[in-house]
């Protein structure tokens, strides 16, 4: 009889545990959607974005998930491939929203972000669109449930130009990738560099996605005797461009558009040897960021995903932490507007939790400084962090106070039109 009771008690326990799991009272899941290129030419880029999210979700879940109105949630990343096809992206988003119940969906390409911004405000099927695209065109579309993750590329244009000018570089030649992003970069750089007084001696774009030989464009560009080359597209072909330019006898420096990563090129294309690159200005080496967690982050990332860490991964990682905290602050995992509104309350982030702490949010843009790295004489040099949204010296100083400092980092002010905070 006593035994029976014991068995019955245990059964009851198991059953109640089961019912808790089933009803979700124990730990529910909040689905974070991702649609992006996972095959085709953009696959590497898409996966970098996705990996950052996956790692963030893992880390958040390991730390106990999030607590919304006393209820525990774990985050689950659900991803679909859209091959940068708008139709597929919309299908995926609809699927994520109505099948999996995702209220936050990430997408990393402007061509698919634009159509998603047409549907993410529809009543009954609204979701928070986390857009990874550095084009200011995103801000041109009015949308209450979109957040854009990276700094505007115009901030990099100005910051890179700034440093190149200091180095005494004047004559530029451009061999930038074709495509929406490359076209905008060239246009912006041409505008800014000539305004500064610099000279552009050649503009020979190349298709970094389909071409494998750039010697035609490079020969033409080098014939104009530039002091430095503005190059870039995806990192691997950019490395190839550097190698081919050196083979053609080019001795000057390189400026990399923000899509190309100097650390990736150095480590993957040149196996850690910086002598070919020699003089480079570009987006900072991830490992040289000043945040406390960066070394740990890089190590774990590269161990888990067997690929080189990238800036995209770091920013996506940090942004998901912001979203998770915002869910807690808003007290909802299902109201995109409320989540977006709460983001400002959970910022700034701290450098001991995320690799690239966000300082704030401005309308739909998350604010993070533009980090510039320099390679000179075959060695990594001091970084620069540009605050691009401060409208005046005062605002800049206030932001600067809160930031992580390090002797290897110089924080600078570089106002970028259209983003100045009141």
């Amino acid at each position, binding site marked *: 009889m006593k035994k029976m009771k014991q068995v019955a008690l245990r059964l009851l326990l198991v059953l109640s545990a089961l019912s808790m799991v089933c009803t979700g009272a124990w730990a529910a899941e909040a689905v974070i959607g991702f649609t992006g290129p996972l*095959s*085709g*030419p953009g*696959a*590497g880029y898409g*996966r970098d974005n996705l990996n950052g999210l996956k790692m963030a979700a893992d880390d958040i879940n390991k730390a106990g998930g999030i607590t919304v109105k006393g209820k525990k949630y774990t985050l689950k990343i659900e991803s679909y491939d859209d091959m940068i096809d708008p139709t597929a992206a919309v299908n995926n988003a609809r699927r994520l929203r109505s099948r999996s119940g995702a209220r936050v969906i990430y997408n990393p390409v402007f061509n698919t972000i634009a159509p998603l911004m047409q549907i993410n405000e529809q009543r009954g099927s609204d979701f928070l669109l986390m857009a990874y695209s550095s084009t200011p065109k995103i801000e041109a579309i009015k949308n209450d449930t979109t957040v854009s993750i990276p700094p505007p590329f115009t901030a990099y244009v100005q910051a890179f130009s700034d440093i190149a000018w200091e180095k005494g570089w004047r004559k530029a030649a451009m061999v930038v990738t*074709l495509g929406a992003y490359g076209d905008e970069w060239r246009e912006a750089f041409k505008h800014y560099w000539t305004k500064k007084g610099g000279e552009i001696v050649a503009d*020979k*774009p*190349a*298709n970094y*996605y*389909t071409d*494998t*030989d750039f*010697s*035609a*464009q490079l*020969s*033409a560009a080098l*014939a104009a005797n530039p002091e430095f080359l503005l190059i870039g597209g*995806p990192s*691997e*072909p950019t490395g*190839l461009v550097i190698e081919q330019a050196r*083979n*053609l*006898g080019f001795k000057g420096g390189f400026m990399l558009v923000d899509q190309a990563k100097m650390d990736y090129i150095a480590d*993957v*294309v040149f196996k850690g040897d910086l002598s070919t690159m020699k003089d480079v200005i570009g987006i900072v080496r991830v490992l040289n960021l000043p945040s406390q967690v960066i070394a740990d982050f890089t190590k774990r990332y590269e161990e888990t995903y067997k*690929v080189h860490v990238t800036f995209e991964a770091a920013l996506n990682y940090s942004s998901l932490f912001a979203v998770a905290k915002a869910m807690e602050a808003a007290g909802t995992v299902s109201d995109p507007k409320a989540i977006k509104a709460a983001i400002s309350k959970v910022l700034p982030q701290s450098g001991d939790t995320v690799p690239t702490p966000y300082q704030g949010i401005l309308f739909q843009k998350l604010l993070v400084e533009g980090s510039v790295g320099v390679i000179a004489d075959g060695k990594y040099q001091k970084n620069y962090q540009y605050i691009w949204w401060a409208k005046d010296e005062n605002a800049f100083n206030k932001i600067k106070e809160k930031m992580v400092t390090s002797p290897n980092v110089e924080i600078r002010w570089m106002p970028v039109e259209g983003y100045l905070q009141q």
Partner: protein
Amino acid sequence: MELFLQQVFNGIMFGSTYAIVALGLTLVMGILNIPNFAHGHLYMLGGYITFFFIGTLGLGFWPSLVLTLIVLGLLGVLMERIVYRPLTDQPHINAFIAAIGALIFLESLALVVWGPQGLRIPNPYPQNFELLGITIGLQRLLVIIGAITLIFGLHVFMKHTILGTTIEAVAQNREGAMLNGINVNRVSAVTFAISSATAAVAASFLSPIFMLSPSMGAILGMKAFIIVILGGMGSIPGAILGGYILGVIEALGGGYISAAYKDVFAFGALIIILTVKPTGIFGKKEA
């Protein structure tokens, strides 16, 4: 002038690749009448197989090249047997769909096995030298020499071996060849083997200079297709000449005109040529 020479050199190197890739395709299209749209993807796979032998197994460049050639040759036979032979009596458009299926398969295969990131093979001949004021990479020179050797070798094979002449006979008159007791299936298999092996050689030579990516075959395949049509289906001189012309046009176009529109000139030229001469420059009267 130096710039011009440099561009022409680049163009010739590219043309060499185009020529040998188109050469393989024209054999398949002319002899078997199969629109093998996946030909560029065989080239891509050739690059990855070379990577496997050099990068993963650590073999030398030349042994890897030979091994790649063999592997791709076998793969070509397999592809003909599995994908195209069952479609012999069906409309060409069905073979075209099968080709699209095959290329999707090959591209995803590379993606799954080797990942989306570009891969590199160490350059066995990284030396450069100056000639007439232009910089010439040794490996680039090797591409040209390799291509010319291959073209010459293939010519000897086609004209002076029994198998080669048989292939030509089938190319000229399939029914007639069949009536004469030629085993057309065996000729098909051999042709496919040669076709994909040549693509593999092109990839092996080029891969140390370039970067491997799963989608690198798509554009090259399309260009090879266009060269074959331009030169006339089944015409070997047409494919070679077409390849070199396209290579030089592209290099000059990319260097002097806009890179964005350089393909427009190539494709536009094709439209014009075909409307003037509807069966290609070296084409037979009516296909």
